């Protein structure tokens, strides 16, 4: 099971956190501090796994961002690397060559996509196409609602002119 997902920039800024196991606010900041200390200082050629408090943290660097997932000792580290890559590819298709700024200004989109890939710390969907389709459908629901709202306010504005 994945206990949490962290996206941390080279500078140690947190770009996304998702907790599937209960951690208090205090513990969360401590975890982030500890792990960025360990992971950001590791050299480029080393393996992508860090043992930490009886768990394993699997991380992978994409450009300026570190994608980290904390899993149980008995989980398959190599598979977690594939899950991270799966997520990155979906982000990449959604934003069209994703960069860190996309994830800053559209952080909520990054969360929505993650929620289509993982629930309860387990993998939900192995097809990138399906995830993209579901996100698009929900985005268009939001757009329709927005248009409706603006057309209603236009009608009200017209009527009260």
């Amino acid at each position, binding site marked *: 099971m994945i206990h949490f997902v962290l996206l941390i920039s080279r500078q140690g800024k947190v770009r996304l956190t998702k907790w599937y196991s209960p951690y208090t606010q205090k513990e969360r900041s401590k975890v982030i501090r500890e792990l960025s200390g360990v992971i950001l200082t590791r050299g480029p050629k*080393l393996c992508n796994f860090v043992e930490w408090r009886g768990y394993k943290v699997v991380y992978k660097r994409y450009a300026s961002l570190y994608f980290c997932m904390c899993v149980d000792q008995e989980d*398959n580290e190599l*598979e977690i690397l*594939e899950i991270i890559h799966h997520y990155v590819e979906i982000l990449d298709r959604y934003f069209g060559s994703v960069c860190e700024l*996309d994830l800053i200004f559209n952080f*909520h989109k990054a969360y929505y996509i993650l*929620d289509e890939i993982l629930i309860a710390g387990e993998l939900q969907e*192995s097809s990138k196409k399906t995830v993209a389709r579901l996100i698009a459908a929900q985005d268009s629901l*939001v757009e329709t609602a927005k248009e409706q709202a603006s057309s209603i306010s236009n009608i009200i504005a017209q009527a009260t002119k």
Partner: protein
Amino acid sequence: MGRWRSPFFADMIRSIRACKTAAEERAVVRKECAAIRAAINENDQDYRHRNLAKLMFIHMLGYPTHFGQMECLKSIASAGFPEKRIGYLGLMLLLDERQEVLMLVTNSLKQDLNHTNQYIVGLALCALGNICSAEMARDLAPEVERLLQFRDPNIRKKAALCSIRIIKKVPDLAENFINPAAALLKEKHHGVLITGIQLVTDICKVSTEALEFFRKPKCLDGLVKTLRDVVNSPYAPEYDIAGITDPFLHIRLLKLLHVLGQGDADASDCMNDILAQVATKTESNKNAGNAILYECVETIMSIEDNGGLRVLAINILGRFLSNRDNNIRYVALNMLMKAITVDAQAVQRHRATILECVKDLDASIRKRALELVYLLVNESNVKPLTKELIDYLEISDQEFKGDLTAKICSMVEKFSPDKIWYIDQMLKVLSEAGNFVKDEVWHALIVVISNASDLHGYTVRALYRAVQTSIEQIVLMFLHQESLVRVAIWCIGEYGDMLVNNVGVLNIEDPITVTESDAVDVVEIAIKHHSSDITTKAMAMVALLKLSSRFPSCSERIRDIIVQNKGSLVLELQQRSIEFNSIVEKHQNIRSTLVERMPVLDEATFSGRRAGSLPATVSTSSGTSLNLPNGVAKPAAAPLVDLLDLSSDDAPVPSSSGNDFLQDLLGVDVSPASVQPGTSQAPKAGTDVLLDLLSIGSPPVQNNSTPSDILSSSQDNKSSVAILDGLSPAPSGGAASMIDLLDGFVPNSPKPEDNGPAYPSIVAFESSSLILTFNFSKPPGNPQTTLIQATFTNLSPNVYTDFVFQAAVPKFLQLHLDPASGNTLPASGNGSITQTLRVTNSQHGKKPLVMRTRIAYKLNNRDVLEEGQINNFPRDL
């Protein structure tokens, strides 16, 4: 314009990002929070979703945002999809399952789970799956169960993962999900299949009923077929990763097969062919393929034995181990640790490669490899392995030295074939990484040295040489090798004459000439060096006193050194300085007897004492906390307590000192609280000691009866009185064994105790017909390890066949089970099965042993399983 300018809260993000200092950022956040609070107070609905998004961003920066929690709930309760979407996101981000506010959302969740819009149902399932509490799980389980049959597969897969969370929170609910989960296994949609398989795996972990259900050929064959289909599937672009169709599905299926095959030979048989196919056909040039192979090896190692498959698996690991990719080598080491219990020989073949990994640049790999090497050590390879590791200790990273030193010390203590080798290795470790050696390790070394009377001369000369060679780099020496210096000082103090007179030279030694004043020099350097700590200085002071008698010619010089500490600010040193000075100066006549060589330190006492550093629970808990068999029959302890109470009332002083004496002798928990005379704890601790004594004296069989029997039998009462008598100057006759025991401890009779302390036997498990007793012993010189002789007795009138005993221990313990004496247990107590367990307690002295046991046997061809947990081990094992 950048495409990231579009969102409705970009202005805030931009202004936060523009901040140059943390103070500026705080000011911007404060302003934004104030505005959001104002909007909340006005119940502004138009900007609610924008404010929520801002709050989430602020939350990610680490600022408190609890005031926004209710906004999430309101947003979830609104009718539209956009509001709900951001509301649920906020709920998952800003709250966790332990917050009370979460309960308020149960009703909204329930409504949304029944919503006509499937995307809203999806949002609710996602939120529930990610943060639900046990209470919510109970309330909403029926809804989720129903959604497992929803028409849209995307809802079914979400419901499946949500069910996992529910059964993790409330395992009793697992059985409700067996049938709907079984239905998911027949689906074609990969999302549903993946989540369904995961759900089944998790159900099987909590419910044996489910495990049996899914092991049936009806289900198992289906799973094997699904795996075969996906393995042989033609190119499927939607699921393809590096030429493999859906590796995620592969891995989940393999994981489920692992759970189903473990401990079930028939089920394991069903999956042999497909596992062999996966192991041989999967491409290993990309990470995805390796992930599948890794999982496949794990499954092969866990299911019931099939020689051919295991060879295949070990070969894959061998290939992994020689891979140049660090990730692959890491997982290979990880898996070899599991493989070692299955096929130690095969793992030993890779020893050289593993040893190379200990020296890797990568800390993760080093750590894994070191642990693996530690498991590989045995009597036959301990010498070369230790040599390799000690050589590496010289050049290893500072941060790795701690782990490395601990492991080397532990393996030397555990497997050393003889004392001289042990002493040599420990001296090397102390010289290389003395500051990483724990106190108890060098204490143990001193005890061993003291016991090796034929090696005293050799050891003191070796230590002198070690200290001498590094004396030029004196600063380094004291920074890194304080423990080496301490051991050296102690030995020079004790055996200084042997150093100077070259007593007991072994033919492997180089000759060495040391004058008396050379020896004093070393001690003087230690006491004068500014970086020596108080312990070292105090030890040096005692050594000097001893040398003053051994080397009369240096007596004057030694007195001068001692006197220099007369003004020490440390009370301990000052006092010793003045006292020792007066001994050297005025009490020449008693000095030589006063500073006689220490009697041989008793290894058994020491290991008992090492264990005795347990927390004070021993003496503070009530008198009934004795480790009695099965923890029953407590009142029986009362007579003894009375006995001691009486005596302590009548004559408090002798009694309490008697307690101390006993405790000292036996090395039982000398925690400060229990040795204070006159405290109420003393008699209780005394009872423990008495009990220990009693069980030493009584034959093991007697321990099978309840303790009340032992205590109330007049004979034993007498003998406990005899113990007290034995403390008085004139020992009375009776209960000879007890007296012997005490005699054995008279300081001047050198009697090396190599057997380790004795421990009372316990009844580890008892059912209506089956009794399991444990007898304990400690191998000499190795206090962490306990040998447990387990004896099983069958009191029922029927023979038990296929008798198998299994045990599990927490991580701080290591357990090794020798083969049992048989697998058939005769009826009516006419014989027994014995089995030896070797337990190594890495937290020795801190944590007591615990163990879970599982006993399986066949009674009239019917399988019987008995499980239990053993908590009543003697404390100091």
